[in-house]
């Protein structure tokens, strides 16, 4: 039953979280500005890239106002971002905003696919583990998720290629789709989804085929935390008084597990999944590079490797915004699923 009071509490909570998220974003913005504009003795030369000609360095300095006093530089920096005028990538000559718009959906596709697998596998294993607490099955699952958890991303990705591409020859070692097929017109920017929208099954199959290995790898390297949290939450709920009451009422074990144990045990998983979205976003830098996935992670790697500062700065902010947004969603989700968090926040 949603009352006006609880809705007001919820709204106040959301506004507070929104404000703190905006503040965090601004803090990162200032930090990024200082790092990119102050630390180097000659930012214009740095921003213009290796072997840039003097005229290019001058043009970069003028475009990004690097010859002005620092407060004015910050004013223009802020103005550019608020108006979406990020300028041109000095390495590729393309609009930076267009580049981000091209790469970001590819990453979202990978992250969302991985997240679906993570939640499905993580929750299933957590449930099985909790329901078989102390058994060999429980031990095996705990070992399995710990192995996945401690595996470094680069190692897991390379091993996946060695096994599935090099040894078994069943999945491609990289890429997002076969370049010989006709790509669907972009609608959402998510290749697989756009293929379905266009009814292009060949493109869809190619997209899924290429998506499988990087998404499964990303999922394998990250499902452990979900399994662990699901397991401990389910165990906690399983032994709670209301579950014992349900059993005393004569409900079947299956009904108790599905309605009471699993539903309540997954509150933490729901919120963690939102936070995990941010982690996965950051984790794509290595995975996309190794799997040649043309996403924002691989783009970031390229940008760093070519010292492409005018692009690196907005890309860092995109990652930051992604992580902050994910945390905001997690907070809101948690407050919906467990209203006590709002009250705690209000106090």
């Amino acid at each position, binding site marked *: 039953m949603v009352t006006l009071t609880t809705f007001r509490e919820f709204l106040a909570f959301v506004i507070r979280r929104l404000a703190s998220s905006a503040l965090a974003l601004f803090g990162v913005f200032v930090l990024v500005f200082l790092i990119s504009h102050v630390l*180097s003795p*000659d930012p214009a*030369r*740095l921003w213009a*890239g*290796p*072997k*840039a*000609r003097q*005229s*290019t360095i001058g*043009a970069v300095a003028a475009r990004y106002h690097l010859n002005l006093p620092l407060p004015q530089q910050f004013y223009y920096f802020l103005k550019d971002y608020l108006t979406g005028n990020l300028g*041109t990538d000095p*390495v*590729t*000559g*393309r*609009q930076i905003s267009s*580049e981000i718009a*091209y*790469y970001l959906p590819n990453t979202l596709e990978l992250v969302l696919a991985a997240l*679906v697998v993570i939640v*499905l596998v993580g929750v299933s294993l957590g449930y099985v583990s909790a329901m078989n607490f102390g058994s060999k099955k429980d031990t095996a699952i705990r070992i399995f998720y710990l192995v996945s958890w401690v595996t470094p991303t680069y190692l897991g990705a*390379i091993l996946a*290629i*060695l096994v599935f*591409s*090099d040894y078994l*020859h*069943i*999945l*491609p*070692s*990289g*890429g*997002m*789709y076969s*370049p*010989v097929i006709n*790509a669907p017109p972009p609608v959402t920017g998510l290749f697989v989804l756009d293929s379905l929208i266009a009814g292009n*099954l*060949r493109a869809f*199959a*190619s*997209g*899924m*085929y*290429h998506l*499988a290995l990087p998404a499964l790898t990303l999922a394998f390297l990250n499902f452990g935390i979900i399994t662990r949290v699901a397991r401990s939450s389910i165990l906690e709920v399983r032994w709670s008084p209301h579950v014992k009451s349900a059993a005393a009422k004569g409900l079947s074990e299956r009904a108790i597990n599905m309605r009471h144990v699993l539903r309540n045990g997954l509150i933490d998983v729901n919120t963690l999944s939102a936070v995990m979205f941010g982690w996965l976003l950051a984790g794509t830098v290595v995975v996309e*590079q*190794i799997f*040649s996935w*043309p*996403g924002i992670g*691989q*783009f970031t790697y*390229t940008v760093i*490797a*070519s*010292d492409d500062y005018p692009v690196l700065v907005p890309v860092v902010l995109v990652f930051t915004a992604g992580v902050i947004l994910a945390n905001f969603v997690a907070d809101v989700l948690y407050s919906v699923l467990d209203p006590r968090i709002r009250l705690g926040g209000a106090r």
Partner: protein
Amino acid sequence: MKGAVSRIVLVALIAVILIVGVVTGVALTRRGTATQSSSTSSSPYSSVVSPPSSSETTTKSANTSSLVVEEGQQPDSLDPAVTFQTSGWEVVEQVYQGLVAPDGTSVTTYVGVLARNWSVSQHGMTYTFTLRQGVHFSNGDPFNAYVEWFSVYRTLIMNQAPAFILGQNLATTNGVNFTVNATTLNSMNYFNPSPSNLSVMEYPLQSVQVLGPYEMAFHLGYGYNGESPYNAFLATLSTPMAYAVDPAVVEAHGGVVANQTNSWMQSNALGTGFYALKSWISGQSVTLVRNPDYWAADLPVSTLNYALKPAIIPTVIIYYKSASARVADIKSGVAQMIEAPVQDYQAFQGIAGVNATVLPIQFGSSEGIYYVYMDPNFTPFSNPLVREAVSYAIDYAGLIKSVLDGYGIQYTGPVPPGFPFYAQATAGLSPYRYDPVKAAELLAQAGYKASLPNGTILNPNGKSFPVFDFLYTSDSALETQTAQIIAAELQAVGIPASASPLSYAEYTSVIYTVGNSTAYPMGLAYYSEDFTASIDYVSALTENGYVSASAYYNATVFNWTVEAATSSSNQTISGAFSNITKAMYDQHVLIWLFVPEFMAVHADDIAGMIPNPAGSGMGYFMFYNTIYYT
């Protein structure tokens, strides 16, 4: 309960879609690769190419219709006037064409591509070209002298990083009464020029002069080299900077803007070449398809040189993949050519169906020659004895073994090994020698405290060598390892070098700083070719003002450099290079380290690559049109 059922149905549906998608993808792809065949072949490095006839090629298995190439770095740009990386040139060289190209066997001789023939004036100041007729772009637009005039001036006006390659000898102005600017270029009709257009293009006192629809002249002397000939001019003209671009296409996408790139041209390509660009999936791959309307396709085969022949393999897909993915793909037959470091040579020897070959050293030289620079304005390094001590302090053989697993050679520069005149320039000179005792003795002789390998201190009351930063770029594992070893070896004899990494951009901002001194008086540097000519290396490493890059400027040496660049006599050039090499060697201004060798890796059943260090195809050949399945 209803909700639970619908959720289960939804999850099941998603799972089915995912599984069907992956399985279909696997099935479709495996059907395409199942017919991969393998056979042995004679060495593909022969300059004599004997591709099979078209009937033979059509009898091959299905996937011989495409060649999959995998390398690490995607193109920086597809605009011939902008790209300045091997991966960019590699694509551009297949789609666009220039007047000339290096011939298949040498780096100093050329074949005509869009030029039928050419002549050089007596003093080497004017190159006159007769162009081929009937050439057209893949969209049907014709090529002529006006188009080439536009293309060369476009590069100069856009003034991007590689423009200096042409700018050495050509300019947009004669400095007196003639200037070409972006407005001029954007206002002309190049397919049917008006009399006023012709009056501009035919004006004689300019760098590029149109003599007729299919005849043109390049007048040297307007560039920053000054009024002198340049014997490597054809090398500069064979680079993408002088490739023909379609003025109509450029005009339709924003025209020419001074000092700026063209965003359409950056990621699209339309030229006269044997391949056309199908797609560039940024971050993933470039796909080239045989140009269906290639102008030279119908010409008699006997009239075609290797740079003109129509492509044999219909599709070339260049993927940009991680090192582990590349190795997995060549082993599994997914890729037919990959880029791999020479240190992996032994690892490839046991792989069936894969051919790995270490190429002659000139291919390594075109990738990069490594040396240590010293800033002569830093007091200790102004003393020749100290510089000589440095040359004895480095264990060159150990370095090559440690960082290259032995796949490199020590050399004496600045002419790179394997390039023309290297043997003459280094005749009688042995590469620098490792002798830490001699290094310590020289240091002591110069007045500094020094250490012998057994720990004995020489000249204990001598001056202490000031601690200084030894610069290197941390972006390269090879350079990081090399710099750290050298710093340790210098410390061992009493030179307290502190290995100091910078990112590549910051590193180059130090290396290319014009001035008298830097915060990094010593460091590790390398040079790779901008165009294939010995003089390119020599000029760069003896250039006035670039303290850290060259660490050396001497008026006498500079005059020899001019002589080597401008003379048409091989004897004079050889003598000049020899003098430069000897002077730099004796004065120990740059400590020449090593040239890493270069490895080619490809499937056994492909052939037809024509190695040439001027080429960017996988770093060792120029054109994909000659490659075929055996």
